[in-house]
């Protein structure tokens, strides 16, 4: 009886303790989400307000079904966004892994310095860092100047490369922005691996390559999975990088949504695009974590 009482009291205490979080999540996440869903079924009034109806028209338009037949415009934007996120994430993994490995295997007293150096760029504003890339990539930018100088040294004719604005510039910007978010989780996984595991692998006849493939990589997987989630999702939604480095050429879902809300003043269509983006992200993430797990089962005991 007493135990029952205590158990029920504990349950109440638990509820009270999580109540602030629950309220905050409801107010800041759940309610806005519901509003967006409701809005997405509405339509735009001539003066730019939302008319609340229940129509699938916005969604149909997004997947290309219009009264005039198939229009691939928005499907292409969605596809471009997914593809860019996949490219960015893949390249970020490829670049981040060696860096994280290097830091994790460095002498302990150097590690904090390296981590600090990785994080330093984050102190500068996101937008400013992207503008810096314009300075590097534009026609009279740092890169072209350097190339021109190198060409003049060997006496070759030089035409400045059209690096900015372009889809490539957007990719470079994305990789640059999100690299630290991949390095840190991979570093955390690698740093946790006990040295004796590498020795055990060597002891059992594995050379460096096989040790890497059979021990290092699988044990770093939780970090790669975590990093992928941290990179893939924001890349899918970001519009600043493509806005600044892509000129008007590279339009992603993020740009689409932003323009619907600010330029076109079609909040209903923008909401539908947001929901599609969310669904897309969710599908990719679920598919991915089903395949690789969140990595928690291989985190060392």
């Amino acid at each position, binding site marked *: 009886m007493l135990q029952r009482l205590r158990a029920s009291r504990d349950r109440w205490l638990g509820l009270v303790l999580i109540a602030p979080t629950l309220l905050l999540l409801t107010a800041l996440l759940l309610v806005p989400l519901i509003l967006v869903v409701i809005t997405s079924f509405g339509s735009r009034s001539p003066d730019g307000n939302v008319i609340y109806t229940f129509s699938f028209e916005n969604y149909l338009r997004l997947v290309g079904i219009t009264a005039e037949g198939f229009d691939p415009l928005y499907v292409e934007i969605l596809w471009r966004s997914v593809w860019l996120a996949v490219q960015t994430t893949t390249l970020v993994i490829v670049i981040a892994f060696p860096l994280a490995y290097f830091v994790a295997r460095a002498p302990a007293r150097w590690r904090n310095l390296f981590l600090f150096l990785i994080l330093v760029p984050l102190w500068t504003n996101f937008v400013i860092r992207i503008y810096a890339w314009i300075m590097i990539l534009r026609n009279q930018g740092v890169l072209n100047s350097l190339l021109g100088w190198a060409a003049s040294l060997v006496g070759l004719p030089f035409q400045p490369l059209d690096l900015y604005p372009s889809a490539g510039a957007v990719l470079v910007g994305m990789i640059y922005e999100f690299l630290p978010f991949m390095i840190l989780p991979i570093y955390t996984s690698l740093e946790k691996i006990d040295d004796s595991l590498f020795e055990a692998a060597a*002891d059992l006849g594995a050379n460096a390559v096989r040790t890497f493939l059979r*021990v290092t990589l699988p044990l770093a997987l939780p970090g790669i999975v975590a990093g992928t989630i941290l990179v893939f999702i924001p890349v899918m939604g970001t519009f600043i990088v493509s806005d600044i480095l892509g000129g008007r050429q590279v339009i992603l879902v993020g740009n689409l949504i932003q323009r619907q809300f600010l330029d076109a003043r079609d909040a209903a269509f923008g909401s539908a695009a947001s929901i599609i983006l969310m669904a897309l992200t969710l599908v990719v993430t679920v598919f991915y974590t089903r395949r690789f797990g969140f990595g928690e089962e291989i985190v060392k005991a």
Partner: protein
Amino acid sequence: MPEFAVELRDVSKRFPAPSGEIVNAVRNVSLQIRDGEFFSMLGPSGCGKTTSLRMIAGFELPTEGDIFIHDKPMGQTAPYQRPVNTVFQNYALFPHMTIGENVGFGLEMKGVDKAQRLTRVRQALEMVRLPGYEARRPRQMSGGQQQRVALARALVNHPEVLLLDEPLGALDLKLRKEMQLELKRLQREVGITFIYVTHDQEEALTMSDRIAVMSGGRVLQVGPAFEIYERPNCRFVADFIGESNFLEGTVREVQQRTATVELAGGLLAYAESDLALTNGQAVTVTVRPEKIGLRPYEGAQNVYPGRVEDIVYIGTDTHYTVLLAGDQRLRVREQNEDPYSRPLASPGDAVTIYFDRAAARVLLD
């Protein structure tokens, strides 16, 4: 077949310490470990046991000297190319693999085909008494079980030499005793040379064919348990293994393997010795507490009067601290043969102690 499984010739290892000075972890160690032997390296923490073992495994390279495995010089040979396997102190099982995958890892690296691998993994797990555990994960197993898996993972490869670094250190006492016997049984069964590192003298005495006692990076004495215990060659060995009394004195006479040593207070000790001693040389006489008696017996050459200072009852035995002339103290151990375990003397009693000259040994340090 070469006579020695492993040979260390004048091996030294120096590490640069972070402070900038140099740590002499191993100093001029020479060892010859016989084929099929259970060989232990025994010594206190920091004496260089692990470093020696890691040099045999190839994780460290000697600063000086050479290591041979079955007469083949190891030189710079990488660990994965050496015919040895290691059982690590923390087991070092791969957490992301099943027990079966862990045990089969070495065979997989050697390119043994899957069917044969599974059979050998099964046999290895049976050998360490973990049949049918293939599908488990390391973290689902107890420390003792992980220990056995680590053993199976090494033995399944039929290494020429198995290296074990304090493999039982993390287990509780009862399990440790069990595993000691188990290890000994396994070693007899597979006939592989075991090199076993431990700081636990009892463990070394129980299991080993031969023991190397180490201190400060050096090997002080090598021999079977009996020899190490009965005929220690220096104070450190006599003190580290079992318990010993030390009496300092001066050699007065040497006659047919018997040395007469004058102790403090004018006492004369008679001790057997093969050492080349000269009259007047300063030496130490050592004698084990259990070889000293409080009961008179025929033919005891060393007979001294003394006074009991202290008595400690420890169940099977009673320990007496006896004060001799010249302010020398001896620990005496008597078995409690009396049905009531009545002590042979009380503190303050005058007693006479007896021991044989063969029980006493002369040490030069």
